[in-house]
């Protein structure tokens, strides 16, 4: 009995969480009048397939490409720098480790909208605004690095130190032990955090909006914001755009979610 109640609660929560997603897809298929129809329809009787039209009309290929370039760049920088930082913060324990961790967490507190003005001035003086996608990549990497370090560090903390020592005695150098023993065991944590970072950067708005002036270099989030103007509210267009934008992300997430739930370190000790 209790099982069924819990199942029901779970199903209801899932429904509440997924409803906006469902509504986005449904609205994308509705016509302009049908969107505002009352009572609303839960499945459009005459679905409109205008994905192709929206994609071309709003030059989404260029937007999505720019978002992808920035997200991949941010993820690459973060993984390279963050993994090393997280590992050292997990292994070395002294006063300075706590100071470093605290500082890292403090950086996480500062919102992008606050940071963007000083960053704009600094990047402008360094000439980085000539390559605005690089500027956004750097700014966003600096922002998400803290999250990556904190989550990855806890993954590394779960890898027993003895495994590394066993690898050293077995003939690894420190770097060898790191890449051949520690990283494979922390793989899930690294992967999951990287996906999170990627998705966050793929949806980045504030830095792209402020640092990129060229339309051909602009990202998909900024492109989406162009729909909302003082006169026009093309809800069908917004939802179609959103659907195109989000579906690949959803697919990636569904494909990787099995990795998120598995205990790889079981059996190492005792």
């Amino acid at each position: 009995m209790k099982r069924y109640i819990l199942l029901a609660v779970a199903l209801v929560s899932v429904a509440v969480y997924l409803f906006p997603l469902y509504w986005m897809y449904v609205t994308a298929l509705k016509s302009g009048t049908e969107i505002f129809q009352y009572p609303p329809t839960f499945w459009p009787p005459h679905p409109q397939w205008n994905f192709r039209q929206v994609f071309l009309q709003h030059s989404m290929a260029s937007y999505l490409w720019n978002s992808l370039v920035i997200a991949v760049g941010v993820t690459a920088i973060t993984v390279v720098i963050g993994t090393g930082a997280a590992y050292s913060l997990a292994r070395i324990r002294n006063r300075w480790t706590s100071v470093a961790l605290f500082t890292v967490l403090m950086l996480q507190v500062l919102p992008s909208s606050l940071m963007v003005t000083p960053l704009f001035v600094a990047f402008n003086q360094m000439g980085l605004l000539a390559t605005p996608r690089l500027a956004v990549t750097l700014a966003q990497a600096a922002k998400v690095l803290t999250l990556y370090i904190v989550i990855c560090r806890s993954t590394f903390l779960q890898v027993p130190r003895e495994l590394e020592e066993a690898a050293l005695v077995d003939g690894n150098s420190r770097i060898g032990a790191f890449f051949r023993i520690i990283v494979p065991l922390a793989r899930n944590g690294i992967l999951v955090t990287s996906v999170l970072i990627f998705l966050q950067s793929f949806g980045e708005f504030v830095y792209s909006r402020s640092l990129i002036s060229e339309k051909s270099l602009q990202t998909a989030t900024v492109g989406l914001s162009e729909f909302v103007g003082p006169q026009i509210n093309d809800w069908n267009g917004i939802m179609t755009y959103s659907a195109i934008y989000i579906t690949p992300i959803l697919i990636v997430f569904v494909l990787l979610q099995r990795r998120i739930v598995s205990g790889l370190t079981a059996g190492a000790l005792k």
Partner: protein
Amino acid sequence: MNQIEIDDLNKHYGAYHALRDINLKIPAGSFVALIGPSGCGKSTLLRTIAGLEKFTGGTLRIAGEVMNTRPPRERDVAMVFQSYALYPHMDVERNMTYSLRLKRRPREEILERAKSAANTLGLTALLSRKPRELSGGQRQRVAMGRAIVRNPKVFLFDEPLSNLDAELRVRMRGEIRRLHERLGATSVYVTHDQIEAMTMADYVVVLRAGRIEQQGAPLDLYDRPANRFVAGFIGSPSMNFLPARVAEDGRTAILGEADGQRIDLGREVEPGREILVGMRPEHLQIRPASDATGLQATVELLESTGSMTFMEARLAGAPITVSQAGRMAAARGEPVRLQIDPENLRLFDPATEAAI
């Protein structure tokens, strides 16, 4: 030839002096146990030999070569960890042959060595299992296998049996010992279990607070402890210590208060000196209270394991333990006589705790 030579080794963790003036020579092919209470530095010493810990002074030689600052991989030592530390993402075979693959040994050699190690340890059927699919005892064997596959200069064991249940522990004790006899490799074995040390090692090093208290053959430590600590640490149940004062004649001592019972020391000691008399529980013999000689004690508690009887008693105001083979009956508060051969008495200075 000495396989491991440690001279005046010191280690500090900040202000904490973890190892103090360690001097130790370990001959090739011997089985040495490092033993002591927790925090005595035995694991630190082992990890120092492995190269996992740096030290602040002294020299460490393995097979004649100075190893002070060499990384672990250049020392040719194998280590079995207390937690086994098996690589969870590799199967048993890959766990055991990891070191060989790192050295890029030929494929056939790796396979053969893995097979022979698996044969020795009875792991042949488990070669393709992952560590998480193994029982505690099997994991322990894989950890051993990982060490013997390498054929190293030195085996280091860090309390390898402490995670096993009692029965398996006794069996593995014999197995490790037999393995050692067959391979003949130098082994250093850390344990806090003095029975493990006594039964397995041919040389025992007792540590306390980072210092070597005594080293020698197991029975030497039992028969001739250098101080009160070693006397109390080696042997089970522990040695009894009773404060006493040497009488005027210099050959007997008065236990407890001034008018207390006399005990024959069996040798000459400076009259009037305060001493601690050490008596092993198994050296005391229980006699009926009606006997004319022997120390008078009162029974407090009897514990029997079937083959052995342990008696808690009070002698000259102090609690003592007596162990005796077989069974006996006695009521609480009943008087008994205890006899001990003066040969078996150990005398210690109460201030320095050194043997007299």
